[in-house]
């Protein structure tokens, strides 16, 4: 008897015990489904994160970011001024290998123009930010030295902000808008960024942004605030490690030894991305593993019950010439048929659930159809079938034909 006819025979047995088989199959179905759906969630979540990381500066980027002080240093917090323009000045002067340095101060502001309002993120920066974070202009210009020195009220807008404030085909560059009630002239417009994952533009954050000179931000929009970040970019990847150490020293000196900042590379972010992703996968795999274990137990239970009922059949088959191996493969094939059917149905239901959730949930949160999950779910259900079938099948194959024939 080959595997195919064994599976066909198994399907016949499944049909003969419809309710019982259905309940067992339901376990496999739910197991495979939960596996495919959770994997889909993880994939969906991380797809946007990973593209964003790439587009957020690449591996040569170095970021100085604020960090909470340790309890021991808490009493001295007033000693450190936080990130300042003097820090930037020092980094520029002492680290010639840094290709770009740009301070950054973020604010949530309201843009207004001719009765239209839009709330969004505004960053005070130097021109270096366009190189560090990979922004290109589609129209107009970036900030001039004069803009910087004068704290000019000029703004560079992302396409999303433009769309919110301007009608189609209206001239944007040269127009005036209000930022938190303060008139500012639009001098440049960013390129439109898009990279779709399913229906989700993972780069949309690059369009939802606007820039003003850091000096303008510091003195006119958020006077007295300290900087949010210090963005840097090495001229060459090989210098990144050394520059991180040097920048840490310089900033440490300027912050009077207080650990209120840390200097990180994108590399570390990528690594922590990978770590987080791995732990999510372990989590998802854990859930799915438990459900598949449960379904394996269900299958084994069903097979043991079924063998008990079919002792006589096994005896007849043995008397007619079936070897132990024939009986063994027959029962394994039945278990595989059962779990395979459950697996196929599980994948089918998972597709439905993912499509349904995809329509109902906002992009970025919704699960995606990950082909790997199907392969894994499918393989897993077959493996579970085989493993759960082995023990009952061994019991069946070891039955003495005499006892089996006498059994009533």
């Amino acid at each position, binding site marked *: 008897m080959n595997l195919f006819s064994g599976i066909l025979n198994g399907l016949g047995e499944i049909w003969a015990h419809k309710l019982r088989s259905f309940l067992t199959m339901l376990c496999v179905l739910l197991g495979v489904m939960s596996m495919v759906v959770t994997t889909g969630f993880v994939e969906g979540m991380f797809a946007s994160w990973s593209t964003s990381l790439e587009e957020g500066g690449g591996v040569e980027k170095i970021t100085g970011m604020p960090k909470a002080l340790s309890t021991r240093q808490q009493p001295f917090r007033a000693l450190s001024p936080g990130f300042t323009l003097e820090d930037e000045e020092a980094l520029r002067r002492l680290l010639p290998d840094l290709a770009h340095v740009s301070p950054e101060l973020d604010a949530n502001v309201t843009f207004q123009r001719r009765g239209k309002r839009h709330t969004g993120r505004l960053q005070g920066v130097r021109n270096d930010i366009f190189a560090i974070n990979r922004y290109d202009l589609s129209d107009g210009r970036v900030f001039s030295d004069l803009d910087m020195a004068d704290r000019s009220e000029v703004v560079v807008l992302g396409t999303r902000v433009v769309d919110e404030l301007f009608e189609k085909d209206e001239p944007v560059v040269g127009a005036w808008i209000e930022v938190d009630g303060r008139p500012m002239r639009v001098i440049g417009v960013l390129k439109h960024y898009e990279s779709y994952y399913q229906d989700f533009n993972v780069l949309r954050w690059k369009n939802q942004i606007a820039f003003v000179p850091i000096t303008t931000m510091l003195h006119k929009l958020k006077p007295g605030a300290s900087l949010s970040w210090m963005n840097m970019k090495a001229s060459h990847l090989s210098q990144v490690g050394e520059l991180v150490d040097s920048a840490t020293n310089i900033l440490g000196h300027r912050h009077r030894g207080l650990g209120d900042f840390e200097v990180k590379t994108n590399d570390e972010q990528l690594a922590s991305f990978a770590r987080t992703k791995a732990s999510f996968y372990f989590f998802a795999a854990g859930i799915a593993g438990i459900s598949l274990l449960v379904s394996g137990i269900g299958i084994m239970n069903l097979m043991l019950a079924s063998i008990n009922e079919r002792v006589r059949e096994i*005896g007849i088959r043995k008397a007619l010439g079936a070897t132990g191996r024939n009986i063994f493969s027959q029962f394994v094939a039945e278990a595989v048929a059962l779990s395979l059917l459950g697996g196929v149905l599980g994948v089918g239901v998972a597709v439905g659930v993912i499509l349904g959730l995809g329509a109902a949930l906002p992009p970025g949160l919704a699960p995606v159809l990950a082909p790997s999950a199907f392969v894994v779910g499918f393989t897993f259900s077959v493996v579970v079938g085989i493993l759960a079938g082995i023990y009952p099948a061994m019991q069946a194959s070891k039955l003495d034909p005499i006892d089996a024939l006498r059994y009533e």
Partner: protein
Amino acid sequence: MPAEVIRFDGVCKRYPMGETVVNALVDASFAIREGDFVSILGPSGSGKSTLMHLLGFLDSPTTGEIFFENRPIAEISADQRARIRAEKIGFVFQAFNLLPRMDVFANTRLPLAYHPRPPADATERIWKALELVDMKNRAHHRPGQLSGGQRQRVAIARALVNEPRILLADEPTGNLDSRTAATILDLFTELNRQGRTIVLVTHDPKIAAYSRRQIHVMDGRIVRDDA
């Protein structure tokens, strides 16, 4: 003299039953030759079912030796024995032992599924076997839809489908009315006339009378053998 198919040489079979040991078969020695039509006759509990199981090597003797085609079966592995059963032995049971969830055709096909060298003309053989027992028109009925005689005829077709060297029948008419029984026995006689070796186990002297040789069993001992 025709070739020996099966030979028993001082075969004993004991098995424990509760506290005591039952001597199901004591020192049985006989040979079954090609073309024989032997009936094993004895009252119930005389050990004839044990004899039957030993003949089909579903069971092994406690002492003594059984030879199949002059090979001691003690030297044959369990898998090999199963293969010999699939290839050279046909079983007909008193309780028919058809698989209830398969139709007549599938039941008849079973031995071929386990045949070590499945014949190319398997389907034709199944039809031929069903025709022989006149069950061709019921091929797609389930056993539950058939009468006792019909079921036994299917069981015989199943036993014949692999064209076995020897046919072992355990009370094949035990569950049938006398007219149906006669049909079945006539079929056996006909099969034997065509050269098939047949061993028939029964408690009924009238049925044993159909055979050409009788072996009488009483309390596990062979008390008479017409050989």
